[in-house]
């Protein structure tokens, strides 16, 4: 209120204006304001709001991330085939262009909202919020969000989901987790896809891929799958149904779940600083 005479300086805030403090004046008369707030706090705020929506409507929201062409849509098609009679599934599709993926999902008789991002390489919490308003969430048990195919950018944006799945297809190479640590570290379950192609690929070793994921301090399950041959599908579907039950238990206790992506670490560092 009054910066001239110092009458607004109290014992409670004196440390702020002393040297090194939050409002310390520098030599040239400028002011340094200490902030320590996540750069994406606006996105995170919206994501928290989305998560409240999901919890209120009693659904489980799952974010699928991978490079383009690693089998996200195919995994969804198979999952819908297997579980569509038991659970009400809806899908939000993120792509730079086209409604192709959404149409594939709709052919399965499942609602799909397409978000075309134009040039944006990832989905953010605001885009998801916009998509949610086009859906009747009361009629959804599992909401899959198929993120834009990209192994880098989607990992930095919380959407409000409960769980992250990161896919790695065997044609991409078993060293990808070492090259793209951020997105694999965010995974609650890593699915190695297209295992049916392993017989013709001599340079992808699933064990090496698993080691590369473990080296990122990831304890999440890693499952070798093929939507084509069916390998690993039972394990994936069992895990998924288990997550639904766990989420229902959490909800009944008034709790929710943040995916690993949620930068709790950042808050930890903030307290420390």
């Amino acid at each position: 209120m009054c910066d001239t005479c110092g009458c607004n300086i109290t014992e409670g805030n004196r440390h702020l204006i002393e040297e090194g403090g939050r409002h310390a004046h520098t030599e040239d008369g400028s002011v340094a304001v200490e902030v320590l707030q996540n750069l994406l706090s606006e996105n995170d705020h919206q994501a928290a709001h989305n998560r409240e929506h999901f919890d209120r409507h009693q659904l489980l929201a799952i974010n699928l991330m991978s490079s383009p062409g690693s089998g996200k849509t195919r995994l969804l098609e198979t999952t819908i085939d297997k579980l569509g009679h038991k659970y009400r599934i809806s899908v939000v599709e993120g792509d730079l262009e086209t409604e192709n993926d959404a149409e594939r999902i709709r052919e399965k008789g499942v609602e799909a909202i397409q978000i075309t991002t134009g040039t944006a390489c990832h989905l953010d919490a605001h885009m998801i919020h916009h998509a949610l308003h086009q859906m009747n969430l009361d009629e959804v048990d599992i909401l899959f969000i198929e993120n834009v195919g990209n192994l880098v950018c989607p990992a930095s944006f919380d959407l409000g989901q409960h769980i992250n799945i990161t896919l790695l297809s065997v044609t991409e190479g078993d060293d990808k987790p070492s090259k793209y640590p951020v997105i694999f570290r965010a995974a609650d379950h890593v699915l190695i896809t297209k295992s049916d192609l392993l017989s013709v690929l001599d340079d992808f070793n699933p064990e090496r891929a698993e080691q590369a994921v473990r080296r990122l301090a990831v304890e999440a399950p890693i499952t070798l799958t093929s939507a084509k041959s069916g390998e690993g599908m039972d394990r994936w579907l069992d895990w998924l149904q288990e997550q639904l039950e766990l989420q229902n238990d959490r909800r009944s206790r008034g709790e929710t779940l943040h995916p690993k992506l949620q930068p709790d670490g950042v808050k930890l560092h903030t307290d420390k600083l």
Partner: protein
Amino acid sequence: MHELSVCQAMLAQVEAIAKRENASQVIRIVIHIGPLSGVVPELLQQAFTIARAGSIAAKAELETALQQVRVRCQQCGAECDVSANRLICCKCGDFRTQLISGDELLLASVELTREDND
């Protein structure tokens, strides 16, 4: 290239702070970035030169302080500085470690000129 989105989010925060502090100009923005944040400091710098135009930070300098990736072993308790794609314990080799630094994406401080200083 999500650095432009990150940069715009940062500038929105900086503008809010500048308004709250009655600032006429932002001189310097300091951010902390960890290698595991998924944001590349060099790309953020490039994006900043585009995004700052016309904002209160149009002439501001962006300082990115790169943070060290550091883990604490949940088995033996050792703390180690490690590389971004090898987060295992440097003492006992166990992979069950907790990241204690290295994924920061923080607006640390903003240096600004107050209107009453002009």
